[in-house]
């Protein structure tokens, strides 16, 4: 009973974290589902977003401006990965890994900006000293400074903007690029440019998530993005498994990823209450993603054979 009570008590926290990670999940959705690319840049660009935003806020820059700078930094990271992939011919996964690795060094440098040290692995933000947009301190408060409110507004605005963008000629051509490259080129679509553009938009979202997470938790750490891709995938997959049949519209599909992230953090909170160590979480997350990716594959392979043969005959 005590476990249940403390779980319910911690749900607002899970909701806040899930919303902030939800933006990251949307970024993963754009690459993994729309572009059909597994982009590992995100582990680095999440921390880059946090680092850029954190450093600027500590320097006294307006937090909205700091967020914007973080988004631009993430977009730049996506641009590098995109160019490594398209202009240099490096496989997409490896391109992401290269950028991610490079960002590790860069993030240490970014966090030390304005400091006497040359590199720095952590940066503390405090809602008492810094003008943070969101803070986990107020997550159980019934007031306007409750971070869930602003996070929900930001998530809704981001979904609205992306919904609009992917309905434009350019956005449609990015979706086509992910769906069928041959067809896209035959229809005059520059598939290389579109892949780069998709990675830029995605990593902008991821960096925004990092910037909000840094403020929400009051710290930036060099490791904050470690395994982020797997958490993002978990959110996308949970959202898809639970809501794909109900949510047909593109905006709702993006929302499903955010809901997936919230559920993910609710589950994480629960298992922590049940006595798991927080260091066990990465193992758990990897297991969840592996299982959710395996089930549809096995279903296809072992249970729909007869149906598939009929289809290819037609």
């Amino acid at each position: 009973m005590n476990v249940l009570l403390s779980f319910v008590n911690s749900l607002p926290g899970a909701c806040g974290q899930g919303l902030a990670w939800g933006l990251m999940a949307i970024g993963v959705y754009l690459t993994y589902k729309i572009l059909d690319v597994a982009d590992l840049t995100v582990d680095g660009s999440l921390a880059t977003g946090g680092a850029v935003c954190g450093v600027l806020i500590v320097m006294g820059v307006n937090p909205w401006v700091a967020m914007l700078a973080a988004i631009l930094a993430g977009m730049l990271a996506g641009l590098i990965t995109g160019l490594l992939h398209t202009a240099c011919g490096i496989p997409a996964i490896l391109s992401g890994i290269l950028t991610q690795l490079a960002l590790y060094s860069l993030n240490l440098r970014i966090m030390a900006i304005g400091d006497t040290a040359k590199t720095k692995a952590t940066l503390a933000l405090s809602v008492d000293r810094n003008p943070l947009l969101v803070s986990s301190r107020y997550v159980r408060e019934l007031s306007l400074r409750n971070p869930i409110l602003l996070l929900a507004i930001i998530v809704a605005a981001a979904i609205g903007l992306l919904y609009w963008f992917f309905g434009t000629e350019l956005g449609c051509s990015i979706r086509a690029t992910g769906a069928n490259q041959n067809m896209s080129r035959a229809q005059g679509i520059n598939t290389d440019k579109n892949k780069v553009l998709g990675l830029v938009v995605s990593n902008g979202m991821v960096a925004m998530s990092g910037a909000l997470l840094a403020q929400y938790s009051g710290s930036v750490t060099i490791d904050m993005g470690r395994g982020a891709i797997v958490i993002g995938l978990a959110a996308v997959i949970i959202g898809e498994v639970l809501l794909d049949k109900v949510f047909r519209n593109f905006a709702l599909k993006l929302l499903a990823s955010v809901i997936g992230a919230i559920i993910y953090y609710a589950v994480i909170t629960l298992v922590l209450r049940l006595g798991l160590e927080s260091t066990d979480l990465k193992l758990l997350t990897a297991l969840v993603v592996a299982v959710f990716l395996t089930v549809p594959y096995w279903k296809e392979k072992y249970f729909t054979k007869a149906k598939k043969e009929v289809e290819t005959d037609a």
Partner: protein
Amino acid sequence: MPESKYMLEINDVYKTFNPGTVNEKRALNSLSLKLKEGDFVTVIGSNGAGKSTALNAIAGVWPIDAGSIVIDGQDVTGLPEYKRAGYLGRVFQDPMNGTAATMEIQENLALALRRGQRRGLRRGITKKEQEQYRDLLRTLDLGLEDRMTTKVGLLSGGQRQALTLLMATLKRPKLLLLDEHTAALDPKTAEKVLDTTDAMIRDNHLTAFMVTHNMKDAIAHGNRLIMMNEGRIILDIAGEEKKHLSMQDLLDKFAQLSGNSITNDSVLLA
């Protein structure tokens, strides 16, 4: 410089795949061909003769080694595939290849309508277009006009090829490239798609280049027939001669020109 009177000029084109390796293959060997506006040429030849390679060279799937390709007076030899697309309509052998399965029928058409245009931040599909698509889909007589928001992945192979044809001609191409586009369909569906192809080429006065494995189709369609062997054209028949061409004529000519009699007709007829 005088205006070219040809819609397509292939001038002395060479292409070798995997040069310098054991898999080296000279696929196009001094290929030249000129098509006038309104020509509908059917292309036959045994496996590996260079039919599809010739088509891909025109489409710009990869750069050629030597020679030039001119479409309606403009040299496109150096243009990447996606830039040439503005001049070309294409239908592939694999019905999966010509459409985006995860997108709606109307979205696929909207992508095709904008071929060769800059894609910016205007709406990807407008109300006015939807009416146009509905009317065009009705002409296919497949009931697709009532399924405009259906994902293309749910259509049959024949339906997808018909839709791809519509997409290839939605914005009038200077040249329509058909790469064995009925080979993957059952005979009845193949015939229907070929009829649609004929109608579209006739109604829009298109210039077309149709690669086929089927000699009967090659004889029955188009106003010109070419036979390829080892990367070049060995037979070119047009006009009245083409109209009276029989299957036996073609087989005899192939034996005579390629220097080997066809012991296995299936090479050409498959």
